[in-house]
């Protein structure tokens, strides 16, 4: 899912070439983001758009040759003049009289040319890894390969792949080589996959036409330098020190000639806005705000000793389980430190729980992009490839981190508690100078594990993610002041982080504290059960089976299969009564009906049903399964297919408690499900007891930081 949808998504046509453009957000200032094409398209700005669009109007377009724009192959369609005319056409089509231009690589050339010809329409120029002619020194590999570009090479390798025939005939090979060379930063697999994917939306012939079309109306050196010198506008140049496409000296010289600011990102390659999105976004903010500092505004600074103790709590919105355990921890923390003020930066569905509990939700919460909606969008029937869903969430994590960071910088928080708030932990390690307050990190699993369906590539990528996390913690132990594993060392799966990497358990025991499991509720005592069953309308002698798939809207396929097993289980166990809870996102009326089968929409305090039922049938989410384990109920659980956490981490933990019966969704049919239900319903269980003091123990460890 995109972090932000455009408000305008249109095309224009110029001399028969279609140009696709988009507009996001609104504001007095318009940013025009210009991608270099045909090698890439407007999605290269995905980490900037949601952030900039919160305060400004953002226009972007696919430059000719890629994305939603045309793919002309004539050289005359790719001249400087045509590319610059596209910039003007997009500004015209969007009714933009004046804009801040942000351009990457050779798109800066078009931006500078446009600013020179229509200076009144350009407020400022932000040049990222600029690829402009003549300035600096060209990378030697470009010079060398230019000489053999048209030759048919025997066995081209390395930069020799920059060759007309290779690019046209083996487009993917060139593209993969090129972006592998550009992404010099370790752990750049996501940026690599993105960049290669976008490049492959175009073709080798278009790419070659783009390379050669530029040559048709190349300005002379003096002409180009004079153009730069004439630029009478604020300029910011951002350049990666290890850029092997455009040497950083180009950027430095451009800044010198234009009198602009130069920001060198040490260690970064050619795709700084994708690989260092937080730094780049903040540099853009600082540059734009800097021009406006004289505007009158009112702010308050509060003396240190006058500040109340404050915590910002970020609870992962993926599933409702985090909300309940985090509320339990917060309540215990307030018992220890009654004076503490806790704000929650949270999104639906967590906010529903928080509102019901009377917790304070930070107003910036409404700006957050929904991670829950992203996960739903990645789910298909009973399948959720959770690792890939997290990976595809990269632009949402950047967008939400930028909001989080503003909140912590404004809020004087002493403490940040992040319960699987990946964006906080990841980007604070990536940008350690941004850390504010003490940081408590919560998680209930450690280590991404590849699924067999992901093949070798996923095995490599998951290990790479784990390796990056291990390096983060080794290099910056100060970012996590406390790391709390929700559970016990025995709950950790006996796997490694990947080839050549540590064992997950060893590493986790070294780097985490273990407050035990945190249920967020106290299961009924044995002598309370009959009373609750009575209250809920369970009749004597009935064997009540509760079926639930959580609140996410994922799970209709599972519900339908289980409903099909209802008449079968009724034959085997005549005293069975089945209650199916569809949840808030599935219309109960849309499910098949049987006489005697009870279908409910939303059930308030569902955990009470679960804690006294004779059998529960659920998905493989940790929270619900552990509630059932704590309540000592028999249950069947169906992990979502390809969900590494449910299939590996959760299953291992449940095995440790001896709790629940694992069901393979793909291998199950109504008959086998009915058999399993008949065997399990009402069974006396011998689970390892689940501790009930986890929240208090976690809170005690957090309180030490206050």
């Amino acid at each position: 899912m995109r972090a932000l949808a455009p408000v305008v998504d249109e095309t224009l046509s110029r001399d028969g070439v279609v140009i696709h453009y988009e507009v996001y957000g609104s504001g007095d200032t318009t940013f025009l983001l210009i991608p270099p094409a045909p090698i890439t398209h407007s999605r290269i700005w995905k980490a900037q758009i949601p952030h900039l669009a919160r305060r400004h109007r953002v226009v972007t377009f696919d430059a000719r040759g890629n994305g939603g724009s045309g793919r002309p192959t004539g050289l005359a369609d790719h001249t400087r003049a045509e590319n610059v005319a596209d910039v003007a056409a997009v500004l015209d089509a969007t009714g933009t009289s004046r804009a801040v231009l942000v351009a990457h690589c050779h798109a800066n050339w078009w931006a500078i040319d446009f600013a020179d010809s229509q200076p009144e329409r350009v407020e400022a120029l932000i040049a990222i890894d600029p690829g402009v002619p003549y300035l600096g020194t060209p990378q030697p590999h470009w010079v060398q390969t230019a000489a053999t570009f048209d030759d048919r090479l025997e066995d081209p390798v390395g930069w020799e792949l920059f060759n007309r025939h290779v690019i046209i005939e083996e487009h993917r090979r060139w593209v993969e080589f090129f972006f592998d060379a550009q992404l010099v930063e370790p752990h750049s697999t996501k940026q690599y996959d993105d960049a290669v994917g976008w490049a492959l939306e175009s073709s080798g012939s278009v790419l070659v036409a783009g390379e050669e079309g530029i040559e048709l109306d190349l300005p002379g050196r003096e002409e180009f330098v004079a153009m730069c010198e004439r630029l009478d506008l604020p300029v910011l140049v951002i350049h990666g020190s290890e850029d092997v496409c455009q040497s950083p000296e180009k950027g430095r010289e451009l800044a010198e000639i234009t009198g602009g600011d130069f920001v060198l990102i040490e260690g970064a390659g050619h795709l700084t806005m994708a690989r260092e999105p937080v730094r780049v976004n903040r540099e853009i903010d600082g540059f734009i705000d800097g021009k406006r500092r004289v505007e009158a505004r009112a702010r308050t600074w509060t003396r240190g000793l006058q500040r109340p103790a404050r915590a910002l709590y970020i609870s992962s919105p993926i599933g409702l389980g985090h909300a309940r355990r985090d509320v339990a921890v917060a309540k215990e923390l307030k018992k220890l430190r009654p004076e503490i003020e806790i704000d929650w930066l949270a999104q639906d569905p967590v906010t529903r729980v928080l509102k019901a509990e009377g917790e304070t939700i930070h107003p910036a919460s409404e700006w957050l992009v929904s991670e829950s909606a992203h996960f739903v969008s990645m789910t298909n029937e009973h399948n959720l490839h959770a690792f890939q869903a997290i990976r595809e969430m990269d632009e949402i994590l950047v967008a939400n981190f930028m909001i989080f960071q503003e909140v912590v910088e404004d809020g004087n928080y002493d403490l940040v508690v992040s319960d699987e708030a990946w964006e906080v932990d990841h980007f604070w390690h990536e940008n350690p100078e941004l850390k504010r307050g003490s940081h408590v990190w919560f998680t209930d699993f450690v280590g991404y594990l590849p699924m067999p369906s992901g093949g070798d590539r996923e095995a490599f990528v998951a290990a790479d993610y784990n390796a990056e996390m291990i390096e983060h913690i080794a290099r910056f132990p100060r970012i996590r002041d406390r790391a709390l594993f929700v559970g016990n060392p025995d709950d950790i799966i006996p796997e490694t982080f990947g080839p050549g990497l540590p064992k997950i358990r060893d590493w986790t025991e070294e780097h985490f504290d273990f407050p035990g499991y945190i249920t967020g509720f106290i299961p009924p005592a044995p002598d309370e059960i009959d009373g609750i069953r009575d209250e809920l309308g369970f009749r004597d002698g009935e064997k009540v089976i509760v079926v639930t798939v959580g609140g996410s809207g994922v799970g209709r396929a599972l519900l339908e299969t289980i409903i099909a097993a209802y008449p079968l289980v009724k034959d085997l166990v005549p005293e069975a009564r089945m209650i199916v809870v569809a949840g808030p996102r599935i219309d109960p009326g849309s499910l098949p009906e049987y006489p005697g089968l009870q279908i409910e929409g939303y059930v308030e305090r569902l955990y009470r049903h679960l804690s006294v039922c004779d059998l529960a049938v659920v998905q493989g989410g940790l929270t619900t399964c552990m509630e059932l384990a704590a309540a000592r109920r028999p249950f069947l659980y169906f992990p979502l297919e390809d969900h590494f956490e449910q299939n590996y981490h959760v299953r291992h933990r449940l095995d440790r408690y001896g709790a629940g019966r694992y069901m393979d969704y793909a291998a199950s049919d109504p008959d086998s499900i009915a058999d399993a239900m008949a065997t399990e319903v009402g069974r006396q269980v011998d689970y390892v007891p689940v501790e009930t003091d986890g929240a208090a123990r976690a809170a005690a460890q957090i309180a030490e930081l206050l």
Partner: protein
Amino acid sequence: MRAREPDHHGFVDSDGLDIGYEVFGSGDPTVLLLPTWTIMHARFWKMQVPYLSRGNRVVTYDGPGNGRTVRSSDPERFSTDAEVANAVAVLDAVGADRAVVVGYSDGGKFGARMAQLHPGRVSALILIAPNLGLDDPLPERDPIRERFFEPYPENPEGWEKFNAAYWRDHYDDFARFFMGKVFSEPFSTKQWDDGVGWALETTGAILEAEMRRPADPDPFEVASAVSCPVLLIHGTDDRIIPHQGSVRAAEVMGASLLTMAGSGHGAHLRDPIPVNLALREFIDGVTP
């Protein structure tokens, strides 16, 4: 030891009075730190000078009656316009066409008047807890101040010590009382010691002469006439000039306002870090 010694110091003749000034560092724009009520002298900028002078030329000087400047007991010397004339003389002496002008308390009044009378010399104005005359009366003080020249009660308490005769008899006691009001934050002993020390470098008689100065210009007229960018900084626990005076000034001047929650009347001394950062940000922001 001072954290930063002046690079150079001197005296400039302002209408026959020698005004002592000091210059620190280099760099545009020049930042002129104005004097305030005579009970303090230019050392009250000690938390700002070392920091600001790393990027700018910083100029401080003393008004008539304290610090390096000659003690004058001529009330005319203390008129707002005479104070402005001193500031202009110092700018001339250091060869500064214009400056970012920073005023504290009474210095706020001088700075605003300077921006009105000499707009070409003031590129921007920063006013810390300024006494612009826009605040509401202070009930515990102002009725007593009406009786400033009358005899004081037998055992004066609090603001009853704001009295010409008491100053002549017990100026040191007044200074101790007054600095307690200025530094109202807990744990302010160092600032209080400094303030009392600076106060005791002049006399009650000089302060009394200042009280006989010609009337100040109309505060609303002055504030309305300021056209340069203005930053106001004011503590919410200011027991000399209430914070609300700067709220009003921000409206009249269209100025930025940094509210210092919990700070008293000497925020630049008691909470120097946020004040310094705000000065730096504002000075850099108004620099072309």
